[in-house]
């Protein structure tokens, strides 16, 4: 999960990483009560990169200019997203611009400090210096980076001091990435964060109350929810797809997707039920995830069949027949909450279910599900073999009832 620039700068300011005087603007008229001197820079607060190329950043010399600029930025969607907030910031004249980052490298299982002067985005690896934080961090790692960047004297000290603070933030907030790009350096060798980026590790969100709070706000907001991909543990999204997949485990979810494609079907989305989703601030149970997953898929008008692939065992196995019975008896109106933002109307019918259960543990559940089968044989298919399940699901999407 990414933070917006103004949130990043609030965090930086708290721990003493230099940021410019700035003010959060929720509405253009807020600029009448601006506390920072002109000229200012107004910046759209969106998750997309490259906002400056498309007009998301404007310089203003007067209040009138600023209000007009703010109005235009507020109505400019970037990457499909309208900003809810702008950041008004003092203008800064940088003599030089550096790149600094702390990133978790999952290949070597260590955090890495990155830094360079004159970043060339055509071949950014070339000038980039890096230091692997092999053992517990100590500021010498940051000094080593500054030294490698070719900095000496006061600038070496101030840059390594910033990197040290970035590392502490990275560690204490469980980040995947903290980046300053660029760090402005003035003619008097003063340093200043001009833009920053923070990516929070999604698995650690709930042990930080402040981050969990930001995450739950995003989860409640349909626009950013889509952009941050937070609703469910989703492995793919194909708007023309006809088959929704529920599986227990990433590998199974992907193999099921592949099998549907290989059989000539169109998968829409694959949900992994194995663990809690990112917007869950409370622990969830498997049965709840299965209930939500079924409803998320059913609310998608294009999805005609839900293919459930469960193998081995699942927690709360005895709940499965109830979850399925409840789902098959669902009123379409109950799906309204689960509608995707791009879709206003409810589907006309519930999707059909093809369920694959394999493993000794499922014997009892299988028996209870057979009773659903007796009344719902049109809409519910229960098999043991994945290949058979996939073929059934694909042939259902090709059956004349669903032809448009």
């Amino acid at each position, binding site marked *: 999960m990414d933070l917006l620039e103004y949130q990043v700068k609030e965090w930086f300011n708290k721990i003493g990483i230099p940021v410019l005087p700035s003010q959060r603007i929720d509405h253009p008229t807020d600029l009448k009560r601006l506390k920072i001197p002109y000229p200012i820079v107004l910046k759209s607060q969106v998750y997309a990169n490259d906002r400056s190329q498309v007009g998301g950043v404007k310089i203003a010399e007067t209040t009138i200019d600023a209000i007009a600029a703010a109005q235009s930025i507020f109505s400019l969607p970037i990457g499909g997203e309208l900003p809810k907030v702008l950041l008004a910031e003092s203008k800064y004249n940088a003599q030089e611009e550096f790149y600094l*980052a702390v*990133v*978790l*490298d*999952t*290949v070597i*299982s*260590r955090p*890495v400090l990155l830094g360079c002067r004159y970043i060339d985005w055509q071949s*950014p*690896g070339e000038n*980039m210096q*890096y230091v692997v934080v*092999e*053992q*517990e961090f100590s500021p010498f790692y940051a000094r080593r980076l500054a030294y490698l960047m070719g900095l000496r004297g006061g600038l070496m000290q101030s840059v390594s001091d910033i990197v040290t603070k970035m590392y502490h933030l990275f*560690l204490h907030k*469980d980040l*995947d*990435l903290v980046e300053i790009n660029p760090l402005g350096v003035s003619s008097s060798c003063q340093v200043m964060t001009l833009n920053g980026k923070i*990516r929070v*590790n*999604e*698995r*650690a969100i*709930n*042990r930080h109350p402040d981050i969990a709070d930001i995450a739950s706000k995003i989860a409640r907001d349909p626009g950013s929810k889509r952009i941050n*991909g937070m609703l469910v*543990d*989703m*492995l*793919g*999204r*194909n708007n023309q797809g006809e088959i929704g997949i529920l*599986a*227990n*485990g*990433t*590998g*199974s979810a*992907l*193999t099921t*997707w*592949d*099998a549907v494609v*290989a059989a000539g079907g169109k*998968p829409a989305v*694959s949900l992994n039920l194995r663990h809690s989703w990112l917007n869950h601030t409370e*622990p969830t*149970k*498997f049965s709840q995830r299965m209930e939500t997953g079924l409803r998320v898929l059913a609310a998608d008008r294009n999805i005609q069949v839900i293919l459930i692939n469960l*193998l*081995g*065992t699942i*927690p709360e196995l005895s709940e499965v027949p109830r979850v399925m019975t409840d789902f098959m008896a669902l009123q379409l109106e109950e799906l309204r909450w689960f509608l995707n933002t791009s879709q206003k109307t409810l589907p006309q019918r519930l999707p059909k279910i093809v369920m694959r259960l*394999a*493993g*000794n*543990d499922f014997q009892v559940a299988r028996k209870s599900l057979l009773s659903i089968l007796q009344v719902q044989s049109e809409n519910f298919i229960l098999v043991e073999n*994945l290949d058979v399940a996939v073929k059934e699901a694909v042939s259902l999407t090709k059956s004349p009832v669903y032809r448009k």
Partner: protein
Amino acid sequence: MNLKPDSKVLIQGFSELISTTHIDQMKSYYGTNLVAGVDPGHGGIMAHNLPVFDLVEEVVSSFGTIDTTIISVHPYQVLDAALEAIAANISQIIIISPGVPPLDMVTLLRKTENHEILIVGPNSPGIIVPGKILLGIQPSEFYTPGNVSIVSRSSTLTYEVAWELTKSGLGQSISVSIGSDAIVGSSFSQWLQILDEDENTEAIVLVGQPGGESEEVAAKYISTAIDKPVVAYIAGRHAPPSKSWHHSGNFATVVKRDPDFGSVSTKLSTFSNAQIPVAQYPQQIPQLLIKAMKC
């Protein structure tokens, strides 16, 4: 790696992933020497037919040296549970809990890497030696004893592959899931080396998925260091690339801005360059294995 059937095993924590069925399967069906559970605050009771203790050290003083612990606590408590096990001189740690914060894993690995401590997982269903020992929650019904080993990054997909082998009459010598979290304790390469030396293993199946670079590293390792035939299967060749692999925070993605990093296509081409046969779907693995074992 001690996989002897009589080695002593402990369970730390009873999350939703580990059930009475799993514990029964380990104890009764497989005869794994599961001696106790540790669940702080619940010491003194019996849970899933196991005596429960508050501390790992109590288990050690009651039962003597413990060889392996299976950790199934809340992901945020995994680091603490592993450190407690290490303090009690347990040298094999299998972490079942998914979603351990990666920086906790970094802390753990800094402590274990230079000491003979083997970590499997997190987000791993564990290890099975069919017919001999089960350490974890792998469902044994999909397995049958034999000479093919499986090393995988998935959970349920590992069983899917095992079942395909069993149905084709190819029994298994050992199956291990290294775990599907972004940072895991032991790598494909470490396990490939163990399996290459394992005298019951004649051929190896590697099961991968998108995200990270462990399959690419493994492919290079196989072509230089592994003598036994290897067949790979990578899930997700038709799936659209996803931002949410939880593996994207990486030197390569930040510096090189490589959009193909961790993608299935990168992995497939690495295996193809290393001349390692890759199955398109799990059902194809047995025939590729038979072909590779004949050469």
